[in-house]
């Protein structure tokens, strides 16, 4: 089993959802990122999503857009992102690491180059916001050839007719984008998330992670009762936005509150 399925299986064995946390690589700068990544793990994150900064993050709201601009503004390069990933892998051999970002920085040197870099840095999967299944040929074959997962996204607009196209070639896990919108503050109603996750579970055996708009331990716990993974991004990125270089301990405390809520939520469910 690879790192991702091992981790999802371990969480499942504990009767809880995996906590997936997002930060942008190089936010506020490359030097500060390792401590922030360590804080995510120390706080109880099960899977790390590392954002590759891009000048034009069209699917992101102001929080993550600003994180992208802080990172690029402090001089982060693609080689730094892979160095951060490789160092993380050395420090945390078991924790799955997903690169998340946009097509242009990933493909500018060709998909084979990108896939090789991912493999060499110990990256387990890739989420590319602007490569829908229709354009899979740009990135999918190269990643699959080196055993890196291409994680697909299902959204509130992905209807039953379209879902098979999304699942065809999906691996690692399926990311359910809970709101038809951008990352940030907008929240989906729990009832809608439950319906959507139910439909996805009926269609695939892949673990289902839910993200977009999850900001509090309470929400994470509620979603954790029905999904295999809960993704939190903007709320963590906001903390980095406020505390900059000194963000690590604040990030760790917040992540601990999220992971604590996921663990408590099973006890409640069991009781």
């Amino acid at each position, binding site marked *: 089993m690879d790192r991702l399925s091992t981790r999802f299986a371990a969480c499942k064995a504990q009767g809880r959802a995996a906590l997936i946390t997002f930060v942008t690589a190089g936010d506020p700068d490359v030097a500060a990122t390792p401590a922030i990544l360590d804080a995510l793990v120390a706080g109880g994150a099960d899977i790390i999503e590392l954002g590759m900064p*891009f*000048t*034009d*993050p*069209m*699917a*992101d*709201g102001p929080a993550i*857009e600003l994180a992208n*601009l802080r990172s*690029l503004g402090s001089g982060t*390069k*693609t080689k730094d992102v892979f160095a951060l990933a490789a160092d993380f892998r050395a420090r945390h051999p078991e924790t799955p690491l997903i690169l998340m970002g*946009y*097509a*242009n*920085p*990933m*493909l*500018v040197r060709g998909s084979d180059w990108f896939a090789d870099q991912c493999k060499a840095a110990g990256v387990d999967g890739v989420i590319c*916001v*602007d*490569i*829908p299944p*229709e*354009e899979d040929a*740009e990135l999918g074959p190269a990643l699959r050839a080196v055993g890196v997962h291409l994680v*697909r*996204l*299902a*959204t*509130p*607009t*992905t*209807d039953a007719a*379209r879902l098979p196209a*999304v699942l065809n070639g999906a691996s690692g896990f399926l990311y359910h*984008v809970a*709101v*038809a*919108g*951008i990352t940030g503050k*907008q929240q989906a109603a729990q009832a809608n998330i439950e319906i959507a996750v139910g439909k996805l579970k009926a269609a695939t055996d892949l673990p289902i992670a839910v993200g977009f708009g999850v900001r509090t331990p309470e929400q994470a716990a509620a979603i954790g009762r029905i999904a295999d993974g809960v993704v939190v991004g903007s709320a963590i990125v906001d903390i980095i936005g406020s505390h900059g270089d000194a963000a690590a301990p604040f990030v760790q405390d917040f992540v601990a509150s999220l992971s604590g809520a996921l663990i408590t939520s099973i006890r409640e469910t069991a009781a």
Partner: protein
Amino acid sequence: MTDTVTLPNSLRSQPDANGHFGAFGGRYVAETLMPLILELEKVYKEAKADPAFDAEFAELLRSYVGRPNPLYYAQRLTEALRAKAEPGKGAKIYLKREELNHTGAHKINNCIGQALLARRMGKKKVIAETGAGQHGVATATVAALFGMECKIFMGAKDVERQKPNVFRMKLLGAEVIPVHSGSSTLKDSMNDALRYWVSNVHDTFYIIGTAAGPHPYPELVRDFQSIIGKETRAQMLEAEGRLPDLLIAPVGGGSNAIGMFHPFLDDPEVAMIGVEAAGEGLDKKHAASLAGGASGILHGNRTYLLQDEDGQITEAHSISAGLDYPGIGPEHSWLHEIGRVKYMPIKDDEALTSFQTLSRLEGIIPALESAHAVAAAEQVAPTLDADKIIVVNLSGRGDKDIFTVADALGVEM
């Protein structure tokens, strides 16, 4: 240049079923938008096959936009250039008068077409990005005409340099939303329009203003703008009894140029030049994505982009807000690679000079975008024989630019 035997029989049959123009185009959007884009493609196919759609489009172009606009022989410009050329040289220059359209540019052709599609899809709200404000004004205009709610995303820097158009949009009932992200220009307004759209797909139609974006936008914008080339063809046959030798049009995203070029792509005797904005020069700040960029993915399509070695988009610069974009429509990238259309860079100062030249010689104040094409014609015409014919697409009028030009010339208004 690609070997000609590998080219399709017709250069007018692109894109393929997946929206690719050779290696360019495609649909690089978030999953949330994918179903809507597929629906738009379906609706557009149906509309294209529906004579009633075509009839309504044609009637609005006639009675509302004021088409056909004239093809005008610019005799004084032609003669002035001949006077400087060697004997027997100096091509005859015609202007396609898109600036006489309602709202003062070619943009309205496309907006009418897309508003009709929005209505067909049952959407009552439209959004658009705008640079110079011409597309914003055209969108606000059709929104008023069709009784639709309208939001225009405009870079804060462009709000500042295109004040008259901002006020026009407001008069027309649109809400103008200044965009402060990134470089606060056209690309950023497109990012924010996409962000808004992805959050409001259920009731909102995005009227993209140029022949770029995810499939089917480059195709449908081109088709709606092709009225420019179709009229030019008929008018030239009537005036001269033959096709022109050279077409020249400015290229921002490329909608007026592709509209002018497309009906002539299969006529090998007609040469074409797309004029890119070279800003302060290709070695300095500019907006010439073919001359100074590389293939990449932005705003839903693969195309030539200004970018660094990591694929980060670099800031474009042009004195003309409508050309201030780091990309270009995918069909132009393809036409550039196969060599069918030549692309030529023109700098800010050259455009400024031609802006004044055309005003004085012909009594026509061109948009700064169009002045780039006039500048190219001024350079090329004297090198051609006097019996050659050039058509310049005068994509818009320059009223919106008088403040920018006065400022650049150091004139107090």
